[in-house]
């Protein structure tokens, strides 16, 4: 499998602020999801890929070329940023003609391609309206249309689902899948929500605090999520009996009972085993559980865990 992007130990800092820190990744063909919380470095990564900024150190290759000061590479890249930049006074078709002109497309070729792309993103009907009146979903579609107008090999979509409602989100997810499956584009798409990425691809990279903390199949990431230590809150009656039994189990690291004995914090290093065993333990001890909640069953916790690892 060839890689569309290879980054080796790249760092990018803006004065004292670190955007990416010793970041390494290999992105194969197909759809790859870049997942990380806000401020993790996803947008910095995209800016480096498009040559908008240059790496402070390290080696970066996109489609086999260095991106900084290399405009010819941009003929093979399509970039859809996460922010809104569309000129409100232009209509969708004018905007695409502007993009096509910047890519050096001849007028005849451009007219045909603009119509094609508008069909692909399902915007043909609204293409002649001023973009200032577009909904969020329409703006995302026309941005994606602009990024694929010149039929690039690699599409970079930065948070394309942000701010969209569930219906639009589903449509954009289907569109992104089609752009790869039907139209053959390789795609790097970012999000701060893992399950959104999961609906598009199984190939993901987790970024946290400027570092790639895990890359690979989403099932492996899921495994990491279930394997990392969890802090679990239990509340109900008979907590003392339950705590005594839990302390004998190998997956329990520590237990902190609340003074009123109606709740406790349990720290476990194998949450999967804990959650499998808990029904039997409840029956065995005769306790009554009112609440059981993991405080760490979210992506942010996984990131923190992986960074410490």
């Amino acid at each position, binding site marked *: 499998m060839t890689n569309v992007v290879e980054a080796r130990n790249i760092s990018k800092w803006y004065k004292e602020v670190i955007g990416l820190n010793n970041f390494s990744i290999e992105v194969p063909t197909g759809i790859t999801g870049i997942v990380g919380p806000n401020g993790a470095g996803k947008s910095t990564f995209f800016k480096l890929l498009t040559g908008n900024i240059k790496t402070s150190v390290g080696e970066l290759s996109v489609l086999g070329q260095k991106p900084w000061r290399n405009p010819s590479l941009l003929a093979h890249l399509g970039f859809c940023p996460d922010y809104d930049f569309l000129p409100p006074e232009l209509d969708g078709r004018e905007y695409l003609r502007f993009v096509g002109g910047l890519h*050096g497309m001849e007028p005849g070729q451009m007219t045909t391609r603009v119509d094609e792309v508008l069909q692909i993103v399902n915007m043909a009907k609204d293409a002649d309206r001023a973009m200032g009146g577009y909904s969020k979903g329409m703006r995302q579609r026309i941005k994606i249309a602009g990024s694929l107008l010149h039929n690039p090999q690699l599409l970079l979509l930065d948070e394309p689902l942000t701010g969209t409602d569930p219906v639009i989100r589903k449509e954009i997810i289907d569109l992104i899948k089609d752009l790869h499956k039907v139209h053959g584009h390789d795609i790097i798409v970012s999000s701060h929500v893992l399950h959104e990425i999961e609906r598009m691809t199984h190939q993901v990279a987790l970024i946290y605090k400027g570092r790639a903390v895990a890359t690979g199949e989403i099932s492996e990431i899921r495994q990491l999520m279930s394997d990392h230590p969890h802090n679990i809150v239990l509340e109900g009656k008979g907590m003392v009996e339950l705590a005594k039994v839990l302390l004998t189990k190998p997956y329990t690291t520590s237990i902190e009972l609340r003074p009123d004995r109606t709740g406790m914090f349990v720290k476990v290093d194998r949450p999967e085993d804990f959650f499998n065993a808990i029904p039997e333990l409840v029956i065995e001890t005769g306790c009554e559980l009112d609440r059981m909640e993991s405080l760490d069953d979210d992506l942010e916790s996984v990131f923190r865990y992986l960074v410490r690892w």
Partner: protein
Amino acid sequence: MSPISIGLWTMLRFSARKLLQNRRWIIVVLLTVLVAAVMGYSATQDGADIDGMSNLMDFLLIAFLLPVLALIYGASMIRNEIDDRSIVQVITSPLDRRIAYLGYYFALVIVLTVLLTLATIVGGLSYLAFSPDGSGGIEVMLVFIAVQFIGVLIYSALFLVMGAKLKQPIYLGLFYIFIWEGFLGSAPGAIGSYTIRHQLRVIASEFINYGDIAHVIGDGTTSLITLIVLAIVLTSLGAFLFRELEVA
């Protein structure tokens, strides 16, 4: 057409349109009305002649409207696109950034030339409409239009490069116009000649026989070459800086 020509033409067309659609046209209209009102009023006063018209055009157009409009439009042209991030489309296209910069520059030159020519015509006709003796007035207007075009070339190059490099280009621009050109430029001695305004007046003096500007001393050809070379140097510098610009 080659892809580069198409890209340059696209930049020029869309940038010029963006400049003209900007709400700053209200300022331009107000300033033009002000120029027309001042010139029309002056023409009604005793002793108003073509010398007076030439002096007013020198002051209102060359010293004020030309640099101020170039600053308002030029310094914000690229800077605003960086700030509102609409520049992303330009810097993620395969068009060489230096060519894109030329597109900005030519668009700025065209728009400023159109606006200043209109202001000159409106102001000049306003004066001539109320002046008892208008002979030579059209000639003066044409010379000022031509000199302003040269001024547009150099001021556009200057303020565009400021906007590409500085986060707050307007302050340095204001300093240049009102402190350097307006204040130090009026000082006696050689220092006064180190201004764009002075060089433009030298060029104009070669063709105008009316007003104070006709008595400015200097070689018009040298001034013209100096300004054109400076415009080329500043534009080349701006194109280079724009290529090196990191847009975070």
